[in-house]
């Protein structure tokens, strides 16, 4: 999936030559995860929504908190909207589960003060009117996909692997809105700089690219500017990073239903 940590940190691609290369797609993805995933991360992102005539029609500001759960290393993620006013306070919480189980998801609507557990079938739905689907917000689930190196290319002067990810488990095949994703991963920093999403019927649906890469800690990189464009409607969403904090401990209680209700921090 185009996880926020890889989306903000998204990165873009290159195309290229036949595979081989002595490294498997899964090994690339595992190394990518080792390098870029952090125990704790908080980020503020402005999302600008553009219509097919490239006019900005809306914007949203969202805050995401993520942490790796201690025992199994699974991801817990909380997203809250800070603006605009009509969705301010709306929250989404995701608990990653082992691939044999469905991830847990909850939605908080401030108007009713109610936290609702939601089903995974909504994963392919559009996320609050953006060009992202709910499943794009999940962390990459390595156990639920097959990864194959299908080529190499050069993007913006950087050599990239082309890794094709296809759903492996029956659950993922049923619930995902994508028949495959083609990821372009920079060979020098193992960072995803472009993703092509193919719909369930095999047609290219949307393309995400990452720019303005910055090294944030150790070998971890992030993108400060990402664009997700859906081809059929011709709309796009631009994600601009406003602020990011890594490795600063986030309370476990933040990733609870009570934490989902709590007001968000000021900047």
């Amino acid at each position, binding site marked *: 999936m185009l996880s926020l940590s890889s989306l903000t940190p998204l990165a873009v691609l290159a195309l290229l030559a036949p595979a081989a290369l002595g490294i498997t797609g899964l090994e690339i993805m595992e190394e990518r995860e080792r390098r870029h995933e952090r125990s704790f991360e908080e980020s503020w992102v402005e999302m600008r929504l553009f219509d097919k005539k490239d006019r900005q029609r809306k914007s949203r500001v969202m805050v995401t908190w993520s942490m790796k759960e201690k025992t199994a290393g699974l991801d817990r993620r909380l997203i809250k909207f800070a603006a605009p006013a009509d969705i301010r306070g709306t929250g989404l919480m995701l608990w990653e589960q082992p691939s044999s189980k469905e991830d847990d998801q909850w939605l908080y609507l401030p108007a009713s003060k109610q936290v609702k557990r939601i089903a*995974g079938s909504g994963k392919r739905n559009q996320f609050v009117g953006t060009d992202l689907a709910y499943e794009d917000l999940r962390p990459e689930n390595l156990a639920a996909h097959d990864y194959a190196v299908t080529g190499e290319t050069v993007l913006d002067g950087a050599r990239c692997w082309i890794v094709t990810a296809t759903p492996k488990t029956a659950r993922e095949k049923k619930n995902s809105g994508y028949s495959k994703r083609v990821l372009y991963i920079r060979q020098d920093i193992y960072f995803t700089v472009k993703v092509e999403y193919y719909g369930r019927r095999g047609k290219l649906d949307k393309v995400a690219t990452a720019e303005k890469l910055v090294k944030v800690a150790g070998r971890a990189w992030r993108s400060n500017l990402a664009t997700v464009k859906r081809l059929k409607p011709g709309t796009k969403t631009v994600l601009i990073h406003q602020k990011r904090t890594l490795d600063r401990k986030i309370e476990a209680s933040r990733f609870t239903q009570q934490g989902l209700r709590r007001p968000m921090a000021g900047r």
Partner: protein
Amino acid sequence: MSAKVSLRSNLHKIAPATLALLLHAIGASAEERPWSAHRPSITWTTDWFAYLDESTLGGGDQHLVRSDLQFLFEGVVGDHFNYSIVPQLRIDSGDHSESGFAFLEDGKRRPVATFREASLGWSSNAFELSIGKQIFNWGVADAWSPIDDLNPWDYLDVPTAERIGVPAISIYHLSEKFEIQGVWQPFFTPSRIPLPGIDSRWFPDPEGFSAPAMAFSQFTFQGRDLPATQLENSQFGLRLSSSVLLDGWDLGAVYYRGHQSAGVFKASPAGSAINAVLEYPRYQEFGLSFATVFGPWQVHGEGSYHDTDEEEMDDDYIEYIIGINRSFPDPPIPFVDEATMVIEYAGQEVTRAKSSDSPYFGSRQFLRPFADALVGSLTLSFSDDTELNLSASHDFADGGSYYGTDFSHKFSDHVKCSIACDFFAGPGNSFFGKWGKNDRLSVSLTVNM
């Protein structure tokens, strides 16, 4: 009545001025400027209702205009403190509001000015403390919640009923397997119900009040006997919940002790007439809830046992609701992007009925709306901005029904308009039958910034 006249006469002055202010603010907000979490957000809503039936209790006209302005200030200070403050101003052309400011909303009508919420919080890794006027929702169901006792409700307009904030202290603790929250409410806040003199187009039928065999309109309403503010009358709730005890399940257990917020009427002879006083029985409640997911289906349920202290004041009963939710992306319906469905069944079993000669009556009027009811809604989303909601409810026990539609469209992130209709049907002694004169069309405009 003077408040009512004053509000009506000033409404036309206030609304355009408010509109001008808000439109100016929208223009300003469109400018590129850094966003700040501490900046308040503002929501202004104006509803216009046109009733299909000309009957009213108060002799008012067939139209009602209501306007509500809310400011939201919320944020976090330092690592541990947070605040949430929601000043609210509201007026209407009927008589649902009364002038003045009230923090504790224990009046019969809505205060024109109040804080819908005003609380300060402190949190650490495992503890959270919040003090102030707050709104809680421990329920998991959509239509209504048998375990939702912490906040009273505003029933002056049943289709748009809303929770009323209450002063409370809340303590929350997170352990490895459980979350526990305790809420203490030192002051009693009653639900707002359409008492005599408030024109809510609510027509209680004499048969609905079986104990005193005469029409409610023949009673002389003597007022409300609110519980005194003292320690033994305070209310508290406790909730133990877990989302990790059983993988994929949200489980909750709730205990509540307090006073029924809607109250029951006590009838007493007064010469040739009968006087009625609204009293608020003390009770305790034990509740359970769950929510889980089976594939694309979300399943939820909750139930409670309601135990009244003074047996002659009300029944003891079990209430429950169980339901399913499902979302259908790209359904085979033209122009529809997504359909979302909710179906729930709500039931009730009386475990101990109060005696037939009890002078108390009316507890089913607001406290127990569903005895054997099917409730459902279908939302069709045509885009992120446009949707149609259809909802219906039918109670097989009393024959009452409600049908509603709401078509809404967002013109931008800041402006939303909706057109809705509400229809009530059923015998005069049914819950919805009593609201039968409220069939209406409405237009609503919401401005956010």
